[in-house]
Structures are given as structure tokens and as C-alpha cells.
């Protein structure tokens, strides 16, 4: 299981990095989005992934208990990732609009042309 997640995270980071290195600003934003997804998957994996079952969902009422002592999936990483999803949404949205504005100002999407140089 860990290996599968590790390979996925690695592949997503590879793709994300490759996109970050492009000249096309839209692709740079895609790269940021993919790396955010990869980071979230990585965070979840740190809680220790087991195959999901109804019993592992960290909602206590569903287990028929009201008090502690229950084995659930790690709620802490889930809370962290929930926050991270929302923040990366804000970031992606902002990056996109910033790109749009930058395009309006510069008349090009090519980040290399902004710097006034070639590759």
C-alpha cells in the first residue's frame, strides 16, 4: 500500500515539476495544482492508510459509541488535509487570476519573454 502511494506521489511530483518548468503560465499553474494534490495524498499517507471500511471513518456515532477507545482512521491528518484542500483552492484561484492579469499587462503568457530573455 505504502509503495503504491509513494509511487503515485513521486509520479505526481514529477509531472508537477515538469509543468512548473514550462514557459506557458497556465501550465505553471497546473503544476502548482498537481503538486498540491500530491502533497495532500502524501499527508494522508502519514496517518497510515488501511483499506477504507465503514468502521474506520472517524465519525463516532456511526460506530454505535459515544465515548472514546475506538479505532478509526487518523482524524488529525484528515483535518490537516481538509484545511490544505481549501487553502490550495484559494491559492490556485489566486494564481490563475494573477496569471490572467499578468497576461493583460504583458500581452503574453510566456514567462521567459517577461524576463526579457530567451531560454
Amino acid at each position, binding site marked *: *500500500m*505504502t*509503495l*503504491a502511494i*509513494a509511487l*503515485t*506521489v*513521486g*509520479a505526481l511530483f*514529477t*509531472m508537477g*515539476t*515538469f509543468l*512548473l518548468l514550462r514557459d*506557458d503560465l*497556465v501550465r505553471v499553474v*497546473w503544476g502548482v*495544482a*498537481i503538486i498540491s*494534490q500530491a502533497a*495532500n495524498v502524501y499527508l*494522508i499517507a*502519514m*496517518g*497510515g*492508510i*488501511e*483499506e*477504507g471500511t465503514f468502521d*474506520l*471513518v*472517524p*465519525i*463516532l456515532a*456511526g460506530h454505535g459509541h*459515544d*465515548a*472514546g477507545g475506538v479505532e*478509526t482512521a*487518523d*482524524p488529525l491528518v*484528515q*483535518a490537516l*488535509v*481538509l484545511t490544505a*484542500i481549501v*487553502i490550495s483552492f*484559494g491559492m490556485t*484561484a*489566486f494564481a*490563475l*487570476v494573477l496569471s*490572467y*492579469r499578468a497576461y493583460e499587462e504583458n500581452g503574453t*503568457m*510566456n*514567462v521567459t519573454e517577461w*524576463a526579457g*530573455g530567451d*531560454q
Partner: protein
Amino acid sequence: MAPQGGVVVAAIALPFLGAALVPLLYRLFGRVGGRLDEEGVGYVGAGVALTSFALVVSQVGEAGVVSFSWIPSLDVALRLQVDGLAVLFALLASGIGVCIFTYAARYMHGKDNLGRFFGTLLAFMGSILGVAFAADLVVLFVFWELTSVCSFVLIGYYTDDDESRYSARMAMLVTVGGGLCLLVAVAMLAIGAEAAFGARTFDLAAMLAEPEAMRAALETKGLFLPAMGLLVVAAAAKSAQVPLHFWLPRAMVAPTPVSAFLHSATMVKVGVYVLGRTRPLFVGEEWTLLVATLGLVTMAVGALLAVLATDIKELLAYSTASHLGLMVAGFGLGSHYGAEAGAFHLFNHALFKAALFLVAGIVAHEVGTRDIDELGGLWRDLPVTALITGVTALSMAGIPPFGGFYSKEILFEATWEAAAHDGGATWLFPALAVFASIFTVVYSLRFLWLFVGDRPEGTTVAHRPSPLLVAPAALLAVLVAVTSVVPDLAIDAVVNDAAAATAVHDVEIHAALPTHVTPPVAMSAVAVGGGVAAFRVVEDVRTAIGRVHAGLHAVHPEAVYDRLLSVTETASASLGPLVHNGLVRTYVSWALIASSALALAGYASATVAIPSLSTEVPVTIVLVLGVAVLAAIATTRAEAHVTGVLTLGILGFMVAIFYILASGPDLALTQLIVETLVLLIFLLVIEQMPAFYGELDRRIAARDAVVSLFVGATATVTVLVAAPSADRPLSDTARYYVDSAVPEGGGANVVNVILTDFRALDTLGESIVIAVAALSVLVLLAMRGRGEVR
């Protein structure tokens, strides 16, 4: 009797409190106007210094350590040790502080930024008091660095002046560089303490209580010489020992009260003080060889340069370096005379040097020049100042029966004894000491001659100095005179205890005029006689020194410093464009490659092992993750923007399903909503943008692929080494949240309870981030519409 912790803490904390309040008071006084505006905060500072002084006085004669817990896991604590040496240093810093503040209030009359000036001066004094009482290495280091930072601000008081900025930066670089050496030495001592006491500690008092055990532990670890060497380098940088002395004369660009404070009782004494403090740990043959040589060479070089100086403050600055050399040499010599010389001269030098700097300030203030050639015969116009100078300059020269004579005599005794004991090359010690003392007499007489003889033409004294300028200097001169007449008064009160704290032998300071001829007396006679004789031909002597000085131009430490600095500046100027060229790809490459390489290097050096992997992988998860990776690949290869956005959406939805499979329904819900929104926004935005896809150069693509694969591989390895084993129970934090969600949060959905109850403030912060992002988006879009164009 045990010291009172509260009193010691108050003595240190009051100046810092004052430093925080003085800028506010300055503004308040500014509204009142008049003299309160121009001088008020200076007197407030003097009051604070006086209070600290009184608090320290109440601890005279006490001994012991008080401790307040700080970082228990490292055994770092706010440990304050009260003993003779600490009290002596604290008394000098706060007592001379009173004089300096009173003087500065008048001297800085009506200047700008007095709030900042006096605030920093107070913080500076507080830091010195902190160093004096610190009995914990970390506390010592913190206060040590604070003195460097404060002195930087004080030396750079004239922020518009290039020379002032240059000097401030030089002082900062040299003393903070020394501070870094101290930090490493501190770490080494802590390692030694761990070996010696079985537990890691930064408790300096405990180390000093068991010097033998510490020594043995450090030697076993092979850290004895490195720790000693680094400590000496740190002290040498702070206390302006050759070859790191060059910042000290430069520091005189500061306003005179700062120079007086910096050079007499505070900044430069910190290094000497720490040498004295740690002396019992290190004293031995190597210590003597290193420290005594360093001190005596500095004593000689400083004295020669002081003779060469043309500016009265420059003369005093070099003489400070020379006298610091004397103290360092004293602490460097192993005998009890060494400890006595160091501690007693610490006391004498603080008194006479502070007074002399104040005199230099008065002269510059009233005559308008500091050039020695343009000054002379000032006794007619400044009789009281002349008298003060007479007493203090003769003490500086070490002429009997003035105070400086006694401590210098003890140093002669110490060098003579070391030479008689060890023989051979150690005879250079007394020789160097006498050689340096001859020139000490010469420059002291040069300073005194400002007031003697006739006034050169063209020099006029504007007016009599204000009594408020003369009084602090006069007070110090009276103290010098008292020490000269009844040296036992000071010795019994505090100096003997101070020397005892630095010594490994019994200490009993005897200060009296000689009654019969002994080797040290003969040395003094040679020094004074030679000095007076040399002063008669002072111009020839100066020419000779000047010739040698000019001949050595290439190896002047200041020239070396300038060269190093310019090399650093050129290097950073050429490094800048390399890493900061405006291209996103450059930043991404540097950041990602560097952090990946560092992470891998970290794993390699820590030899982390990849935990055994469970082979069971549910097919569903493999499928979902596989589709996610394929979607990412498709995004990367997408030719049209729309394709990329849609495949990116597939990736997002696959991750949402993954969350479901990982038992996180809340995550899946959020992810679905967010993905839908992102998809919409992307589609809206790319509609407005041209379809620029960029020409994908094969060579560049290959290069980027290598970088990407490296980063991806690092990410894979990171997950593998960091992932917990499958059967690991919940972490304590997670367990706590699960167990207390219902009883304390009143909710069964643990994730929600964490977000909205236990960590509600974090969630509020997150909401604010989203709100700010939304506002920024609005502003970015709306402002353009309103015609804001570049």
C-alpha cells in the same frame, strides 16, 4: 549569604524596561518641549542606571547561583551567578553607566533620535549586566550577542554618515563573527559537560565547580584545545586583541559618550570578562602560551599605535586595546598574580578610561578639534578638566602612586614569575610587558600634554564646559584618586573577590608603594624612565613607528578586512543574477533541486531505513491512483489548454475517490466541491487567454525531465521513509482528539470537531486566508477595469 534572585533579575531587567519606555517618554517630553525635551530622557537613563547600580551594590559580598527554568529538556536555564567577578563587572557597567548617562544627557543636548539613542544605550547596559551575571552558557551567548547588536546601533548613530555606517558594520561583523566562535565553543563545552556529569547541561557554574572533571572530559573527547581556541578567538574579537583590534579605533565615530562607555566598562571588557570567567576551566600551559602571548602582543601593538595616533579619541581607542591586552595577559598567566592583575586592572582601567574619554569629549566640544597637533596648553581655559586629566592619565601611564601603577606592577610580577619559573622563551613575557609600558607612558604623556605648555596659534576655547559635563568625569577622577591613595578600599570591597573567582590559587592582592628593589619594581622603573626619555624625542619615535607601520601596509588587518569584504561583495553581486534572474524556471529549479538534494543528503547521513512494506494493495486503490497518475501525464502532454484543464479535473476527482477509499468522507466532499469550482474558474479564465503552448524544445524537455524525475524520486523516497507501518496505533494527539471529541467537543464527527472546536482559531485563520485570496482576486480584476495600467 545567598544572593536574592529577584534583585539580580531586576538589576538586569530594569535597563531593558527602560529601553522600551524611553522612546515613548521622549515623545511625551517632546510635547512638553524645552530642556525636558532636549535632555530629559538622558536623566531618565541615568536614574535607571543608578537604580541598577544600587541593586548590584546590595549584592556585594554575596555568592551563589539563582536559577529560573527556561528549557528544561536541554538543561538551559536563566542561571545568574553572583560572585566577586560578576559584581565587579556589573558595578563598573552600571556605575560608569550613571556617569555616562548624565554626561550624555548634556552632550547629546537637542540632537535627533534621542529616544532611540538612549533606549539602545540602556539595552546595551542591560546586556552587559546580563553577561556579567550569566551562569548559563546559552544565556551568556544571548546577552553577548545583544551587546554586539546594541553596539552596532550605537556606533552607527549617525546613520547618514558613510564612515559611521562602515564602522558600525565592521564592529558588527568582527564581534558577531567572534560570537559565532563562542557559540561553537558553548556547544563543545556542553558536550564536555555531558561526558563529565552524565547529563547534557549548559550550566557554567556547575562546570566551573568541577574544572578537573570538565577538563578530563573535554580532553577525552578531543575538544579541549578547539573549545579553548574558539573561546579565545571570540574574546579576542570582542576585546579587540591583535589582529582583530581594528574595529575598536573605528568605533570612535560614535558619539563620545558611547565611545567612553564602549571602551571603558562595557563592550570590550566582555571578552576579557569571559576569559576571566572561564579561566579556571582552561588554565594551563597551552592557555598561557595562547592567551598571555595574545595579550602582551596586543599590549605592545596597541601602545605603539596609540603613540602614532593623531586624534585624541584614536589615541584613547588604541590605548584601550593595549590595556585590554594587559588584562588578557594577566588572565593568561597561570599564577595567582595573573588573576590579580587581570581583575585589578579591569577595575582601574574602567575608571580612568571612562574619565579620559569624557575629557576627550569635553575638549572636542569646547575647542572644536580632536587633532593633537592643534591642541595644547588647555589648562588655562579648562583647569578642572586639566586636573582630572592629570590624575587619570598618570594612572593610565602606571606612574606611582596612581591606581594603574599597582595593577601594572602585579602584571610585571606575574610575567617575571612565569619567566623565572619556566625560563627560555617565556623571558619574552616580561620583556614585552616593559616594552609596551614604555610606550604606554609616552602616549599618556602625549594626552596629558594637551593641557600643558602653550596653546598653538589659531586654537580657541569656545566656552567653559557645562558643570554637567565635567561632574561625571570629576567623579571618576576622584575615584581614581581614592584608589591611588587607599587601594585597599577597592581591593577589600570587591576586587579581591573578583580575582579569587578567576583564580585556581588563593588570592591576596597587595597594593603598596615599593619599599625595596625587586624585579617588578625595576621593570616599572625602566618603563617609566624609558617612557619619559622617549617622550622627550616623541616626534622621532613617532616617525620611526610610522615608517614601520607604513611598511607593513599589506598585512594591516583592516586592509585584509577590506579585501575580504570586497571579495564577498563581488561574489554576492555575481551570484545574484545567477539565482535571481527573473525566470520562474530558475527559481523552481534552484528551490526544488536544492531541497531534494538536502533531503536525500539528510536521509543518507542519518542512514534511515525504509520500513518493511506491506504487499497487500487493494485493487480499487491501485485503479484510482493509476487513473490519477495517467490524468497527470495527460495534463502534462496536453496540447490545448482545454484538454489540460479537463484532465486536471480527472486527477482531482480521482483524488476525491481516493479520499473515500482512505476513510475520509469529509475530505472527499470538500475535494469534490473544490475541484468543481477550480474546473469552472480554469475554464472561465482560459477562455480569455490565447492558446499559447510554447515550442517544446527536445533538449530543454530532456533537461527538465531529468530535474522532474529527480524531484519525483525524492518525493517517493520521502514517502517511503516517513510512512508509518500499517499496524501502528493512532498518535497520541490523534488519540486525544478521538477520545475527547464527544465529551469535550460534543460532536461525533472527529474531523469536524477538530476543525470547528479544538483548532477553531486555525480554521478562522484559514477562512481569513480564503477571504484575502477572494479580495485579491477581486482587486486584480476590478482595478484593471478602472484603468490602472502599468
